Every structure is written in structure tokens, then in C-alpha cells.
């Protein structure tokens, strides 16, 4: 850690770079170019890639994770993190599966999914925002607790027998090749984009991430904003769980294992500062596309899932390390 007390002398240019070169240096533009490049490479690598239906299938690689990613982005910008999202999904799915055995219909299942997600988020929020505990450990704890409850309920068994109409959320299509999940992804992107970039609440999130003390002194109810962010993350995990459960048609306690890693990776890849304070929703959308395209491309090339997870891990470290190496190389010059 470079904790030397003298900050690096900031280089202030005589004039700003041209708008075009500034735009080109933006992280989002870079991501867009990467996504486009992967798209082109994939379409050459496999003849099956450019089929609209297979592209539509590819969107399932990122839609559920991105829904969580949007909420997670807000949370990380505010300087917190939620590692329990995958466990919230497991618990939500277990609750829905349990409700099916009691004869619940599709509307009840959706309501249960959202309420359980909300409750898990409220629990995290209460511990972090209410009691002032560090979110990393709290959510490591709840990660164990929520999935642990699923294990207690399910053990080595599985729930299935979801009603036929429930399958729509994970397998239905709104129009032509556009799946319900893709539509939900688009709506979520829009809602979270507006929330973060166009509302006072969104500004408050940035302020809290940059300086929580200053935020408090400027009249922002920091604890309340953080609590709401945990609620949002819980709800989005619940919704993602509804989609995933509907798509798989069954619930095991190990469902969605490791999703928290992919959601955090997506957010960081999207240019959100892991230490809080900066980041955008369009960046996360592009990161979702990049990750989806890459996993789909690997899938077409028959690369096993665990090798993809190596790639995700490298991506997570790489996207943080590269800009820092780059900045260091420039400082030397």
C-alpha cells in the first residue's frame, strides 16, 4: 500500500484535451469497443453465433446476474458490498419451492420471491446501516446463514413441480426472440440508471461513497440510504432468483453458487471503483454484455464452466490491476 503522506503532485494540464479524445478515453467507450470486438471474433469463431435465437439464448448468461449487478453497483458506489446475494437467491428459491409443496400458485410464488429477498436485504441493512457493522463480514456471515437455512430445509433433496405458468419468467418471450428476462434486464437498467444518474438519491449515493462523514454533515441520512440500498439488492436478488428458479424448474440448496463473485466482477468490470465513489450504470450494462458474450463464446467452443470461472477471476483482478499498472507506467515517464 502506498500510504506515504505526500500525495502525488497532481499534473494539471494547460488546457483540456479535445472532447473526442476525452470521450475515447472513457471506460464505457473502451468496454463498448471490447464488446464489439468479441462480437466480431465470436461470429468468425463459430457459424452458430449470429443466429438470432442462439444470441437470444446467450442473453441468459448475464440477465439474472446483471439485475443483481445494478443494485450491487449502487451499493459498491456507496462504499459497501453485499457478498450474500447468491445465498439470498438460494433462500428465496427454497422459500418458493416450499410454497409450491403447500400448493401456491404463480402470483403467490412471485410475491414470496420478492418478500423473501426484501427480508434478507432488510436483515443485511439492519446489521450494516442500523448497527454500523462492516458490510464485508456481515454479508460473509449472512452468506453462510441464508444458504445454511436452505440446506437445513432441503438437505440433499430438491424442490421441483413448479406450476407451468411459472415457467414464463425464465423461459417466456415478450416478442420474437426477446425473452422476458431480457426485457426485465432492460427495464432494470433504465430504472437503476435514472435512479443513480438523475435523482437526488443517486447523488447522495456518490457523496456517501466519496466521504460518508461529509455526507452526514451535508444533511444526507447516510444510514437510511445504505439501508435502502441493501433492500434494493435484496429485492433484485429475489427477482433474479424468480427468473433462475423458473428457468431451471427446480431448487437445490447449491443453486446460484458463486453468483456473488460474478456480480461483483461485472460491477468492477463496468468501471465502478471497488472503494466506492464512482461508476455508472451504462458501464455495468456494457460489462454485462462483455461477460455474456465471452461466456457464450467459450460455451460455443466447448470450454468447461470451471475454466470460464478462471477467466472471470482473472478478469476481476485484471480490470483493476491494468489501469493501476498503466497509471504507474505513465507516472514514471
Amino acid at each position, binding site marked *: 500500500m502506498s500510504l506515504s503522506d505526500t500525495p502525488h503532485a497532481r499534473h494539471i494540464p494547460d488546457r483540456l484535451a479535445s472532447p473526442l479524445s476525452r470521450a475515447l478515453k472513457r471506460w464505457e467507450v473502451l468496454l463498448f469497443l471490447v464488446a464489439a470486438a468479441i462480437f466480431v471474433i465470436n461470429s468468425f469463431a463459430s457459424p452458430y453465433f449470429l443466429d438470432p435465437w442462439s444470441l437470444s439464448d446467450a442473453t441468459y448468461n448475464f440477465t439474472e446476474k446483471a439485475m443483481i449487478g445494478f443494485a450491487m453497483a449502487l451499493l459498491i458506489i456507496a462504499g459497501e458490498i453485499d457478498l450474500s446475494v447468491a445465498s439470498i437467491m438460494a433462500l428465496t428459491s427454497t422459500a418458493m419451492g416450499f410454497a409450491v409443496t403447500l400448493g401456491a400458485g404463480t402470483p403467490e410464488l412471485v410475491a414470496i420471491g420478492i418478500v423473501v429477498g426484501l427480508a434478507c436485504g432488510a436483515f443485511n441493512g439492519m446489521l450494516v446501516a442500523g448497527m454500523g457493522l462492516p458490510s464485508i463480514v456481515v454479508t460473509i456471515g449472512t452468506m453462510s446463514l441464508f444458504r445454511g437455512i436452505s440446506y437445513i430445509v432441503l438437505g440433499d433433496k430438491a424442490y421441483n413441480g413448479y406450476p407451468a405458468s411459472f415457467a414464463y419468467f425464465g423461459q417466456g418471450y415478450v416478442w420474437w426472440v426477446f425473452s422476458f428476462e431480457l426485457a426485465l434486464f432492460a427495464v432494470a437498467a433504465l430504472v437503476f440508471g435514472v435512479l443513480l444518474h438523475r435523482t437526488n438519491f443517486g447523488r447522495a449515493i456518490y457523496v456517501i461513497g466519496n466521504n460518508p462523514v461529509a455526507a452526514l454533515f451535508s444533511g444526507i441520512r447516510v444510514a437510511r440510504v445504505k439501508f435502502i440500498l441493501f433492500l434494493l439488492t435484496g429485492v433484485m436478488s429475489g427477482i433474479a432468483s424468480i427468473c433462475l428458479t423458473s428457468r431451471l424448474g427446480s431448487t437445490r440448496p447449491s443453486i446460484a453458487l458463486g453468483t456473488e463473485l460474478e456480480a461483483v466482477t461485472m460491477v468492477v468490470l463496468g468501471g465502478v471503483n*471497488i472503494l466506492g465513489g464512482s461508476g455508472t450504470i451504462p458501464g455495468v450494462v456494457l460489462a454485462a454484455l462483455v461477460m455474456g458474450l465471452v461466456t457464450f463464446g467459450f460455451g460455443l467452443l466447448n470450454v468447461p464452466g470451471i475454466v470460464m470461472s478462471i477467466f472471470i*477471476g482473472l478478469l476481476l483482478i485484471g480490470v483493476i490491476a491494468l489501469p493501476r499498472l498503466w497509471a504507474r507506467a505513465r507516472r514514471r515517464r
Partner: protein
Amino acid sequence: MTRLLTSREAQLGVAILVMIALIAVRFPAFVAPANLANVFNDTSALIILALAQMAVILTKCIDLSIAATLALCGMVAAMMNVAGVPLAAIIPLVILLGAGLGAVNGLLVWKLDIPPIVVTLGTMTIYRGVIFLISGGKWINDQQMSAAFKSFPRADFLFLPVLSWTAILVVVVFAVLIGRTPLGRSFFAVGGNPHAAVYTGINVGRTQFLAFVISGALAGLTGYLWVARYAVAYVDIAGGFELDVVAACVIGGISIAGGAGSVGGAVLGALFLGVIKNALPVIGISPFWQMAISGTAIILAIAVNASQGRTKGRVILKSAEHVA
């Protein structure tokens, strides 16, 4: 004396004894010396890793890749055994490999200033993936391992298996390292106040790097012990064990914010979880409860840690502040 009684170590020790006593009322066989030795042996891996994790947490970092490091080193140990490498070479080699994997974490934290949680979340999946790559997803099981490889951790020596003695040895080494060496002091200094540590001439990044190397080396050693004890190596061994390790530390009163904790606390935290894990089947509760119990214990422990920190207060120079 009152400080001793209200310390986290004393509370935990009493809690463990009460727990054992309650179990003993219904199931006297649980407190038979042989069974207690068995519980300790079963918890040895957790004790070793909890101490390793403690070194990292003291420096304000966290190592989530500790179980993946264990699994990778365990797989490499098993593969070396299959290839005919003698045991005397395997053990130092896996410790070295573990230290190397820890050094990767440490370098990323030290040289690139990447938050430890992100680094180790990433290396956690990478190391697991590498196990798949080197093993091709296959299991190495009982019949493929040599007898010497499997029997070493189980060999009895002065009433306890070598596995237990290894844990005891690590505890002793840690007690000396943490309490009696400059490196141990610098762990606390770095975690307690990194800026002040810089002023006292401590290289913060290097200290964190060393903590990761120690953590990796111990995970490597445990990797061999684990694989040899259970006589199987595959991609998912010790899956999720990093959570138990962090739980043991948090329960043991090691502050996740760094700079506070003790060897005794980590050991007792591990024993607390170990006793629960071994008691569950005895009192007839499904082992599937283990995960939720660990989670609850983590949450309760942080809540207790935080409330204790609040009431006591850590401001040493209150009067000086008012004068100024």
C-alpha cells in the same frame, strides 16, 4: 483479574466448557478423553488455518482464497505422490507452493494496491480452476495414494496423531511469532493504524505481503494433511471452508478492521466451531445445520465485538485532546 474474566478468551473458553458439559449430561461418551482428542484432531485443520487467517486479518486484509490454496496444494501433493515423489520432499514442496500462491495475493495487494477482498475473491476461483486444469476434473482416491502418504498425519505419537501435534506446533510458533517478534508487532501496528506504522518505519505493504505468504504456506501444509487424512483429492475439497476459517477468527474476537486479536482467541474460536460440528451428529441434528450455525455465530460475534468496542472506547489521549 476482572480484565481476565471479561476477556473474549475467557468468555469463549467458558462457553465451550458449558457447551461440552451440557452435551455430557445427555451423552457422557462425548467427554471421554479419546473422543475429546478426536474432536481436537478433527479441528486441527481449522485451528491452523484460523491462525493463518488471523495473521492476514490483523494487517487489515482478508484471505478468501485460503481454502482454494489448500485444495490446490492438496491436489498437487496427491499428484506428486502418485508420480512417486517421496513424502519428505512433498511436504516442503507443498508448503513452498502454498507460500507462492500466498505471495501472488500479497504482491497484488502490496504492489498494485488492489483491495484484498477483490484479490482473494479472484484468486479463490482461479486456484480452484487450476485444480481442474491440472487434474482434468478427476479424483485421486485411496488406492492411488501410497500407504506412507496417507498414514503420516494419522500416526500416533505420544497419545495424539501427528495431525494434532502439527496444530499444537503451529499454535506455539504463532504464539512466539505474534507475541515475541518484531514481525508480530508490525502485524498489529499495520492493522491498528497504517499511517502511524509508516511513521515508525514499518513497510505496510511488505508486512501485508508477509502475512499472505504465511497464510499461503500454512494452507499448503494443511492441503497435504487434509488430502492424506481423508485419502481423497478432487476439485471441491474444503469447498467453502474459507467461511469457517473467517468465522473462527471473528468468533475468536479478531477484529475484522485489523490490529486487534490474539492467538488464544483464534484457537478458541476454531475449537468453538469444532465442538459444535462434532456435537451435532451426537445430539442427533443433521449436519446440514452446520452452515447456518456458522453464519449465525459470525453475525453474533461481530455484533458482540462492535458493542464491546463501543462501550469501552479506545481513546487513550482523551485528556490531551481536551487540553489542546
